[in-house]
């Protein structure tokens, strides 16, 4: 059996004899869909364009004469191809998607509509600022909401996702330290941290030292204290953490961190659990990214785009990268260059002003909820996770049974001991129950982790349906019905996929 370091199998354990493919490609409403390269589109197009008025003779042999190798399809064929493909996806709009740490909540369609107003979608990042005052005002307003909700004095909007936000935060910290002539080289982070935390720290030029975890799933304060020192630039802690728990001693973490002359970076991926109820600024946080695509519901789109604004403490604010917006008497002004008020900025993260399309969606979402609704978001998210934990704890093994969890409930695979069934098998079996599996094998601190995040937008009936399905599977596992798990999924568009084969001899593009 091929397994990853974290113990996750990567190829199906059962071998099913290679069956003859059915004749035809469709059955009922489902279609096996070839790749566009196999659809006979070598001389088609799905667009009508005018004749060019002039040729490219001026370009001489700069012109490409070789075949590019792009198939084209008429519009009806293109539409059908991608509609068919789409139906092979699970989605929030289809059923609960309890992917822990990912906050798969409802994506309001109003947000999509607003982002498509020509006044937002059809403006250029470099057209005169006098012609985009509404866009600048919107960025300013978004910044106001983020600052108020976090209790922080500044925000850098431009990071393009959470990991990019982490980088922004660490670079601001690095710049602040350099500004005081203090070249520290280490970042402390717990083992439970998301992979982006150590990866970002490394990118920002830091060595990562792990902080131990207590038995109750929190930062081990004694260990932290012992590792803090003059070489530590920052402590990176996720709060609520990736075990779904609030860091009870967060005040102490920030106190110790600051006492050691370091900065406190908070991974805010789990801000959904506390939005409107707790302000990270009140916890001593110096920098925290906010995944707008999690807490503020910009759609994940099968892997992005996201947006990862970073709120900053007063100490870090001067080092924030351009661009940012200031509101002046004559209107809003975009500070684009690292000069004047941005002279201390640590650099530039990306070409333009960040993810405007996501700003529109996030602000629409915030205004829709309002301060009352956002607080309710946190409460319902936490309530839902604790409900899942309560309903499943009898059959599964909660990783941290004592006390409430926050927005997600973490289980380990102790309950599967001696069944021959793995966390992966349970995940795949859940597919046969109509659900997207929970996050598996993350965080790394518990064995065979199953991290369940229902979010506040699941109705109780759907959460119950999910819990019923998990309990059914737990009963089946205990009853020794191994085939139901090892063979799963049986009802998805494909059976279990062989990831080992994919990695061993990578085929990363179609070839004729």
């Amino acid at each position: 059996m091929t397994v990853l370091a974290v113990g996750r199998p990567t190829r199906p354990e059962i071998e099913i004899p290679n069956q003859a493919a059915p004749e035809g490609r469709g059955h009922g409403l489902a279609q096996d869909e070839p790749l566009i390269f196999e659809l006979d589109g070598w001389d088609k197009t799905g667009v009508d364009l005018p004749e060019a008025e002039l040729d490219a003779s001026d370009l001489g042999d700069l012109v490409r004469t070789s075949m590019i190798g792009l198939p084209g399809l008429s519009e009806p064929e293109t539409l059908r191809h991608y509609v068919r493909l789409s139906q092979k996806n699970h989605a929030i709009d289809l059923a609960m998607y309890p992917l822990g740490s990912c906050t798969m909540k409802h994506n309001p369609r109003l947000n999509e509509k607003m982002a498509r107003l020509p006044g937002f979608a059809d403006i250029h990042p470099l057209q005169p600022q006098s012609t985009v005052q509404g866009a600048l005002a919107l960025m300013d307003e978004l910044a106001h909401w983020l600052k108020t909700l976090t209790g922080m004095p500044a925000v850098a909007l431009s990071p393009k996702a959470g990991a990019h936000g982490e980088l922004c935060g660490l670079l601001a910290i690095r710049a602040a330290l350099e500004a005081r002539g203090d070249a520290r080289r280490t970042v402390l982070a717990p083992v439970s941290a998301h992979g982006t935390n150590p990866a970002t720290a490394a990118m920002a030029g830091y060595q990562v030292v792990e902080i131990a975890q207590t038995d109750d799933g929190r930062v081990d304060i004694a260990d932290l204290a012992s590792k803090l020192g003059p070489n530590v630039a920052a402590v990176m802690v996720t709060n609520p953490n990736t075990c779904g728990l609030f860091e009870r001693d967060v005040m102490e973490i920030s106190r110790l961190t600051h006492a050691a002359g370091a900065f406190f970076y908070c991974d805010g991926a789990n801000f959904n659990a506390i939005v409107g109820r707790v302000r990270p600024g009140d916890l001593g946080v110096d920098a925290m990214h906010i995944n707008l695509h999690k807490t503020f519901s910009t759609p994940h789109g099968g892997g992005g785009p996201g947006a990862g604004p970073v709120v900053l403490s007063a100490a870090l604010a001067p080092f924030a990268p351009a661009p940012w917006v200031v509101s002046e008497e004559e209107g809003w002004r975009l500070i684009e260059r690292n000069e004047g008020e941005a002279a201390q900025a640590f650099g530039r993260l990306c070409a333009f002003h960040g993810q405007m399309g996501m700003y529109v969606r996030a602000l629409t979402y915030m205004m829709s909820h309002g301060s009352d609704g956002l607080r309710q978001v946190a409460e319902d998210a936490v309530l839902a996770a604790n409900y899942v934990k309560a309903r499943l704890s009898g059959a599964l093994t909660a990783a941290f049974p004592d006390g409430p969890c926050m927005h997600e409930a973490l289980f380990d695979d102790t309950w599967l001991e001696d069944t021959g069934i793995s966390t992966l098998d349970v995940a795949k079996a859940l597919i046969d129950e109509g659900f997207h599996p929970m996050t598996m094998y993350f965080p790394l601190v518990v064995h065979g982790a199953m991290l369940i995040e229902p979010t506040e937008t699941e109705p109780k009936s759907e959460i119950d349906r999910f819990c019923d399905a998990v309990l059914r599977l737990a009963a089946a596992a205990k009853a020794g019905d191994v085939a139901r798990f090892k063979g799963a999924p049986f009802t998805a568009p494909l059976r279990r996929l062989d990831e080992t084969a994919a990695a061993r001899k990578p085929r990363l593009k179609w070839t004729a």
Partner: protein
Amino acid sequence: MRYLPLTPSDRAEMLAVIGAPSIDALFVDVPPAARLAGPVDLPPHQGELEVERAMGRLAARNRPAGAGPFFCGAGAYRHHVPASVDHLIQRSEFLTSYTPYQPEIAQGTLQALFEFQTQVASLTGLPVANASLYDGSTACAEAVMMAARATRRSKAVLSGGLHPHYAEACWTLAHTAGVATQRLAAAVDAEAAVIEAIDADTACVVVQTPNVFGTVTDVSAIAEAAHAAGALLVVVTTEAISYGLLKSPGEMGADIAVAEGQSIGNPLTFGGPYVGLFACREALTRQIPGRLCGETVDAEGKRGFVLTLSTREQHIRREKATSNICTNSGLCALAFTIHMTLLGEAGLRRLAMVNHARARLLQGALAAVPGVEVLTPRFFNELAVRLPKPAAAVVNALAADGIIAGVPVSRLDPGGGMDDVLLVCATETTAHVDIADFAEALTRELAQ
């Protein structure tokens, strides 16, 4: 609140199952001092109608590119995106799914990514492409880092034709990792100076074509020089439509090609979200940043797709990962792929030719304006012109007349002493009358 399905009685029932007396009891781990007693100081919830009105008012204070003559490029391009593209990417199954971690129920996203990778490889003329990065500028910075890793060298030579924002993003990422970036002087034909900057420390040379001034360059000689010095050549393209007309980076010897993919399938949206394209030679595969989608089979032997080579990535390799990127630009990549599929080879080539032709018309019209000098010798769809006045002032004056005249170089590269240079761009969306109106207004403005 319309998005929150739990009713008061649901909440009460759930609390009872949990055995908690109140919601507050679930927040006991929060230090009392940090528990907010009530809502923060922001307005309360609002209905759709009210929010739509407020957002509509903000949108109305922006002047859409489509509202009149419009000539901005410089890294973001206005193209016509077919209605079916935007329709398809709004399908629930694409829009509201996560990164395809469970491939059995994510084949839609995965197959589209595999198509995307194949298209990007074909366009760039290189064998391997990834499943997207944030945008062209971060892709460029990642390329520099990858070159440094692959060559174990610590200097990147950045051509003076590289988009200044790209150069800044490269510097920002590289310098913290101890990789120096040598940024050559900005010039319309800056590529000529690149070769001499290559030395034995050089991990890579970064050259943009068409460059930020619009100049198209055959980089073959630079490739040779780089390779001779053991360095890699990174070729940058900010206007992906140009692939339909110009020699590909791969054909000219690039080791890595990065591009801004926005032009295909994605609206301007004030600069983001966009989609970074990233392709390279096969030998660099395991150094690639970001997601890769690969082909495999399922337990019944049916073809399927999965995310693969994930041992490069942060969630497996943590601090040793090739990049920290996680969420990337999936939906923008899908839009790219759908638009590209609609275009096909014939459509892309024609579209590129129309862009080029419109830019030539624009060149002709501006060259005829007294006082205007066209600077760019060979261009695709944008070019630099020298004005007899500071370009920013001219742009502002024309904007008041309803014409968005382009991007003053001063906005990108303040210290460059090119305050009188204006970047102008024409695409298939530029009508003949737009060009005529622009030339007329410019003539008037310069005459003052």
